């Protein structure tokens, strides 16, 4: 098993670097449509990874993704033309993080389904407060957003995804990662060992919101127009959650694969038959929850174990005539 583990440790980063190099060079030779498609995929990957950064670590199911994504979109509209894009992104990231601090401080004492429901309703709350404000105070609905070309957006999203991956990796390796597993496993015991659970949860929630808000602002540049109803769309809460469950949360690959598959499926089906997309989405989710509790990654692990334990040793035995080269396991 030792050799296997070493191999596993090397293979992951190598594949990541190769994929990254490929994706950086892609706009040089790919068609415009491919870039637009990848932009959507990267957006969902960023949202899903950010969601996993908080909910995957702590076990608290957040449905507030749409709040932070919407904040990103909406901020881009309100501050359009005031700030250059990098500053605008930073600004909406920070606004989202502050919102997360507020929502988190209020709600993170709740557990399980109560936390999920509160975060879900916070989306509607903010949407309708802003809608009321636009209609009754401003008297004008919606904001224009200056267009930014797809190539730039693509690179920015790629950078955000890499940033989230690095952040997740660093947290996982640190003592905070261990503390978060402790919170997920038994929060009370974690507190007894000296973990400041509330602070850790709220800060992680804010960090996750920061990335989601930035992603929203970048995506707004392709929408040209945003208002509160468009920005705070509940689907942005559901999709990342479901994509993460579909992909599996035990490794960082799961959410990436889950988001990629579904974002592609959406793009493919939505032009042909928009109704079929939601139908298939729902169907796949039901099957995943019933039969693949650890998502695609869990399925892969199960198949691999089956192969390693049964099929491959059998083949090896046949080839080597009973002699074993590797007896470490």
């Amino acid at each position, binding site marked *: 098993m030792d050799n296997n583990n070493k191999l596993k440790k090397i293979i992951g980063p190598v594949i990541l670097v190769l994929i990254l190099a490929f994706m950086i060079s892609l706009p040089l030779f790919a068609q415009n449509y491919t870039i637009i498609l990848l932009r959507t995929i990267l957006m969902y990957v960023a949202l899903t990874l950010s969601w996993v950064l908080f909910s995957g670590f702590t076990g608290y199911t957040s449905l507030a993704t749409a709040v932070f994504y919407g904040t990103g979109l909406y901020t881009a509209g309100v501050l359009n033309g005031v700030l250059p894009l990098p500053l605008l992104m930073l600004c909406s990231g920070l606004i989202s993080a502050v919102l997360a601090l507020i929502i988190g401080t209020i709600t993170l004492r709740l557990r399980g389904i109560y936390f999920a429901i509160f975060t879900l309703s916070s989306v509607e709350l903010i949407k309708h407060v802003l809608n009321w404000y636009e209609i009754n105070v401003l008297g004008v609905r919606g904001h224009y957003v200056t267009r930014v070309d797809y190539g730039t957006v693509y690179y920015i999203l790629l950078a955000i995804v890499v940033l989230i991956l690095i952040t997740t990796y660093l947290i996982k390796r640190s003592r905070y990662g261990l503390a978060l597993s402790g919170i997920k496993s038994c929060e009370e015991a974690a507190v007894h*060992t000296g973990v*400041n659970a509330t602070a850790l949860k709220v800060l992680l929630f804010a960090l996750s919101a920061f990335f989601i808000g930035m992603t929203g602002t970048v995506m707004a540049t392709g929408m040209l127009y945003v208002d509160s109803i468009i920005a705070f769309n509940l689907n942005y809460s559901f999709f990342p959650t479901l994509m993460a469950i579909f992909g599996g949360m035990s490794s960082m690959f799961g959410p990436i694969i889950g988001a990629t598959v579904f974002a592609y499926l959406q793009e493919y089906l939505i032009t042909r038959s928009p109704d079929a997309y939601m139908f298939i989405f729902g169907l796949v989710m039901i099957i995943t929850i019933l039969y693949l509790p650890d998502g695609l990654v869990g399925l892969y692990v199960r198949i691999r174990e089956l192969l390693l334990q049964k099929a491959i040793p059998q083949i090896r035995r046949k080839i080597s005539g009973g002699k074993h080269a590797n007896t470490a396991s």
Partner: protein
Amino acid sequence: MLEVKNLNTYYNNVQILWDVSLQIGEGEIVALLGANGAGKTTLLNSLTGLVRPAAGSVAFLGQEITNLPTNEIVELGIAYLPEGGRLFPDMTVQENLELGSYLKNSWKIRNKRLEEVYSIFPRLKERRKQLAKTLSGGERQMLAMGRCLMSGPKMCFFDELSYGLAPKLVKESFAMLKTLRDHGITIFMIEQNVNQSLEIADRAYVLENGRIALEGTSEELLKSDHVRKAYLGL
């Protein structure tokens, strides 16, 4: 080492603890005995900052800790093992232990501490990659105690160590307490199991209806008529 003076604690408007005072010296094993509802756990929670006492003071090594948050109290050198051990069931033995050194000063030297714990409980080393939920009852107790040691405590609080354990395991767990004491750790144990607690404790306090009813060395208490009648059924 630990000095508690006139502690009064309320839950809402109900007073649970009435003028509780006690002292624990370095290297002692002191037991707090009492029936269900006497206020034992409330006292422990008041000492570790989980419940705020309304009046009175708690001093540890001469420093006032009455209103400190739990994590700072842990950092000062008090480890608290809650009732039932409270392990992290979905984490490995080693991760459980490492989490015991979560606080900054301990985290840097966690590998050294890990070796110490493994030398006290070699069984944990054998099982270090196993999930905590797959351990036997005795191993869980070892792990829970081992995790306490990982924060490098000077003193450990044990809440109902014998709770829900088979008699043989109670004996083993109490023997582990002596091992810990031999490693220089002061022990304050909260127990309903009066008989066996008095066998290993140096001194004990008896809590009744939120007040200290009796105190003395274990021999004195074993001879006391009140203890014999009310707790030992003799």
